[in-house]
């Protein structure tokens, strides 16, 4: 088993929470893991990504080679496309469709979505909207993780357990909200 995952977003959007849940589940399964993060300047609203690598064998490089990622998980549509050169053959792109516009020259959203939809393997969902509908707008990241969950080769229950463990301190309400968000993403059909 090998899963190389690019997590993408804009500094401040909290992509690391997705990595934390996947990572927890992976460790629980006895997998090897490497996860590189962006700290520093780009965290101020710049483009950020995290390389998350899971494998049942020893992982060497902290960086995923270009052209070899299995999944891009993005919390922002434009950012999802920034890492296309990372994608391997048959890889999946899972992204939120809500633009984060903190630059004046943000391209037309329809152009971006058309490009995403032209990719053979993609899931594009309104994670923010879905999270709001569930009454927990902050759990959009878990909606996206849910949508990515069928492609991770991690049993769904392991992700649920990870959420329970990670949010344990925050109380049952938060746990339930996140589990619901995860399920909504998992059930999403285009």
């Amino acid at each position, binding site marked *: 088993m090998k899963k190389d995952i690019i997590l993408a977003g804009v500094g401040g959007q909290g992509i690391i929470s997705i990595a934390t849940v996947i990572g927890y589940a992976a460790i629980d399964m006895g997998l090897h893991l490497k996860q590189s993060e962006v700290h520093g300047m780009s965290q*101020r*609203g710049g483009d950020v990504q995290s390389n998350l690598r899971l494998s049942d064998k020893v992982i*060497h490089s902290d960086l995923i*080679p270009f052209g070899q990622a299995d999944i891009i998980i993005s919390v922002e549509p*434009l*950012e999802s496309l920034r890492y*296309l050169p990372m994608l391997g053959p048959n890889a999946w792109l899972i992204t939120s469709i809500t633009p984060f516009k903190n630059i004046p020259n943000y391209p037309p959203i329809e152009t971006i979505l058309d490009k995403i939809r032209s*990719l053979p393997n993609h899931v594009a969902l309104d994670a923010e909207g879905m999270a709001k509908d569930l009454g927990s707008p902050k759990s959009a990241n878990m909606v996206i993780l849910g949508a990515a969950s069928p492609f991770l080769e991690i049993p769904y229950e392991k992700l649920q357990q990870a959420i329970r463990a990670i949010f344990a301190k925050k109380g049952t309400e938060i746990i339930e909200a996140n589990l619901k968000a995860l399920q909504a993403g998992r059930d999403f059909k285009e």
Partner: protein
Amino acid sequence: MEKQLLLGDEAIAQGALDAGLSGIYAYPGTPSTEITEYVEHSRQARETGVKYSWAANEKTAMEGAIGMSYAGKRAMTCMKHVGLNVAADAFINAAITGANGALVVVAADDPSMHSSQNEQDSRFYGKFALVPIFEPSNQQEAYDMTYDAFAFSEKYKLPVMIRITTRLAHSRAGVARRPALPQRKGNLPEDMRQFVLLPAIARRRYKQLLKTHYDLVAESEKSSYNLYFEGKDKSKGIIACGLAYNYLMENLAGKDVSYPILKISQYPIPRKMIEKICSDCKEILILEDGYPMIEELLRGYLNTGVTIHGRMDGTIPRDGELNPNIVAVGLGFPDTRGPEVPDFMVGRPPSLCAGCPHIDTYVALLETLEQYSKGRVFSDIGCYTLGALAPFEAINSCVDMGASITMAKGAADAGLTPAIAVIGDSTFTHSGITGLLDAVNDKANVKVFILDNGTTAMTGGQKSAATGRIESICAGVGVDPAHIRVIKPLRKNREENVRIINEELAYDGVSVIIPRRECVVELNKKMRAKFAGKSNE
């Protein structure tokens, strides 16, 4: 033992704690900051009374560590690569004094300049100072080498450098720990003149350092961190340093190639191993995540020896960090790439947060400067450096920490008056105070804006050294209190702020203007902690 998921930085911190660290001294700087933050939040550190200190700058941090080593305890100091420039005087001389309690210096380099002004390679400093360097290739080695570095430092009574680069510093992996050792009790140096670098003593100590170097080379030859892998295919030999070794293994895993490989993670360079690979192989590929240090050495000026490939012949790009694809191409393997980035892609540069106090400062400053020709704003390093970008395009320089005030003074001396300096509160205490003294002593016509957001924001909000004391420091340095003005950078105060700035612009002398309002990210953190009903630990 169960493995812990740690960043490379955290592995270094945990390695130090387990090696019996007594004190860590640092000034923040990406990618080194998380080392000290880990100790700051570590229960183990708290329970065993490990001292942690955010120093005013890297030089004071280094000297604090040297002092602790003098007193016979184990000390570590951490900084980003350019921080070592600031601390270089103390560092180079600490190699001459030598250590008493262990002295470990961590330099975190940033090839590709993700968050830095340059990509200098700290191994040159280690070599320059004649101290041993450990360069881990993964998180486990970061832990193990740090653990060992303390014992090594005490064995040879020398400072030891640990050099890492961004990708290792900021990547997590499982790390197995070793038994935690107790701290040292502390004792004065056996030779009470060890740390007195009068020329006569320094000469003697330098000779000793030169002699020790042979032992260090011998240590490198037998180090378990330097590995020689024999290979049948001697058409090429590969030397991989530090993190580069991981990119190499990524490429070789599962492939049927058998080049001899030399992994180097401990310096001085293991001479015999180098001799062997160079005599065994027809040509050599050198992989270094930094400057071509070993490559330059092996090529020599005339490049007449063994055929060498690396950064200097274009096999590997001359600048920037390595990655698995660059190494693949260097090995002659095919590159892999997914679909192209679409043409409509645009950059997303970092920017000041919505509501950031620096925004209101720049808006007011730009309005007052309309009356002058452009190009007179000397800035410094911090969040406010983002004022260089649109929509502000407000600043004309960012060179090194503290340079705003001194450059403004130099420019004012050259006739560019009034000259404006823009410096953050943490940068001001890092190395702006001495420059302000220069300006006062020369009565320069400079207007110094000390942007006081109460924190060291750029690196994640560490304590700022002189919160609450900025005005008194300026007055103490000799700035006329009538020309130390505090303003509150808020949109609604713009008119008043413009008026105050204009008053100071009209004054021919040193003015200090302190726009003071808390960083909104820090403010939010505090609010959240309050809301959650607990401290932000």
